[in-house]
């Protein structure tokens, strides 16, 4: 039952810039079971996106290994669909074409693609927009298309890099609920990067708080509040206070580091 979907063992990531060395990730060990919704939480510079990019295969660890049920990660692949903060929709393709692209790459036949795209557009409420280009859509609608595009891949794993960060609060809540619905329905394993404490508590089964440079796991906690969660409830706020303290400690370190760097310059 509790089979592991993503196994991160002893992962380190070092970036060499011209004048110094930044240790972005240090000794990360995480075992993410199938169907779990995990949020990576922390201030900017804590390596949460670096870790996500490593799982996606865009930037491999300097040492250590990441394995999924498809084997050790050596590069990007459609078994780990990614939703980017900047949407990353292809602007020259219509909504329909964007969603179909992954299926065409897979070599699925035209009739099947049409059916599958139709179904996904319907699921995400995009049917009326299918012939539009991304530039004609709102941020929320664009992110729906990006989610549909990844769902089309039918990958067991969904990676999300602050996907709702640029959206207004109402659209954000709307998409969070939609995502929870999709997750419950399709039983995906989701790794979701955010710096919003509330978003993490609202969505996740498990929250991994990361430290500012070097990025390590500061706290790995399970959230077992029943869904849909009420952000105004006392239990939600107890958790929010606790996480707030953890994240702010790291934010303070981030701030101090920036001040120090400025002083050196």
């Amino acid at each position, binding site marked *: 039952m509790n089979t592991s979907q993503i196994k991160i063992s002893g992962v380190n990531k070092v970036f060499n810039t011209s004048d110094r060395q930044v240790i972005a990730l240090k000794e990360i060990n995480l075992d993410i079971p199938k169907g779990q919704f995990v949020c990576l939480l922390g201030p900017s510079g804590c390596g949460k996106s670096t870790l996500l990019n490593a799982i996606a295969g*865009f930037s491999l660890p300097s040492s250590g290994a990441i394995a999924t049920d498809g084997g050790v990660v050596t590069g990007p692949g*459609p078994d780990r*669909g*990614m939703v980017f903060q*900047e949407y*990353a929709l*292809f602007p020259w393709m219509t909504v329909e074409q964007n969603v179909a692209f*992954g299926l065409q*790459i897979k070599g699925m036949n035209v009739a099947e693609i049409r059916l599958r795209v139709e179904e996904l557009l319907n699921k995400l409420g995009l049917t009326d927009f299918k012939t539009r280009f*991304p530039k004609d859509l709102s941020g929320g609608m664009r992110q729906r298309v990006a989610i549909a595009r990844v769902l089309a891949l039918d990958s067991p794993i969904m990676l999300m890099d602050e996907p709702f960060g640029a959206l207004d609060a109402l659209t954000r809540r709307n998409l969070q609920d939609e995502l929870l619905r999709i997750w419950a329905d399709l039983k995906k394993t989701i790794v979701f990067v955010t710096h919003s404490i509330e978003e993490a508590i609202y969505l996740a089964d498990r929250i991994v708080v990361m430290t500012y440079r070097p990025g390590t796991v500061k706290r790995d906690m399970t959230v077992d509040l029943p869904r849909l969660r009420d952000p105004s409830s006392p239990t939600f706020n107890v958790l929010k206070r606790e996480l707030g303290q953890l994240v702010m400690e790291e934010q303070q370190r981030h701030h101090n580091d920036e001040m120090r760097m400025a002083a050196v310059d």
Partner: protein
Amino acid sequence: MNNINWREVAAGMIVSAILIAVWQGAASLGWVNPQILPSPLAVVQKWIEYLLPTDAYSAAAGSRWTWAFSGELIHDTISSMYRVLAGFVVGAGLALPLGLSMGSNKRVYAWMNPLVQVVRPIPPIAYIPLSILWFGLGNPPAVFLIAIGAFFPVLMNTIAGVRHVDGIYLRAARNLGANQRTMFLRVMLPAAVPYILSGVRIGIGTAFIVVIVSEMIAVNNGLGFRILEAREYFWSDKIIAGMISIGLLGLAIDIGMNKLNNYLLRWHRGLEN
């Protein structure tokens, strides 16, 4: 875009009308020698003469349709357009694949770039002697010169276009499992289209300049040839009529390119408004 601002159009007309009226006045009052500057009316008259068929209609020579298009201006326009298109197709047809490979492959870029940088600043007109030496007279040297004129703008813009493809699209495509070929054809190429099209536009503009010049030296028809020929007979009215035709054709090409741009880039953010 679709709403024509008539007030603005009218304002633009007024300036032209005043200019033409002054010109006509000067001509009617005999202030200028009509051989040097003919009156606008004479130019219009000549233009119509140039446009219409020279011979009377005869059923033996062909249908009414071919007769209606047998005027000298129509023939010249078709000849010039043919050269522009042929030269452009050759020039852009070579520039596009070279630009795509130079833009996407560092090694090809390193091989070709020094040569391109040295040859690029040579204006197409400087190739005239060589083009005649190599191709003699007629269409081939003209097409050669026009191809050179169109080649470099398309090349440089294609290289820039491919190099400026936003990395996020490449990452998204790799995430979807795209192979090299799909990446190139469905992501890099369309992402570079805005750049390529602006190169095409500059290329067509250069081709249009070069066609007029090349017709003055290498061939005996076309709009460029016609105005040079008119000079030999002191037909200044025909020179100006020919120049106006060149202007109108240039405008038509530009409007056509604009329409093509708007269609091909209907997805592009830059055109939002």
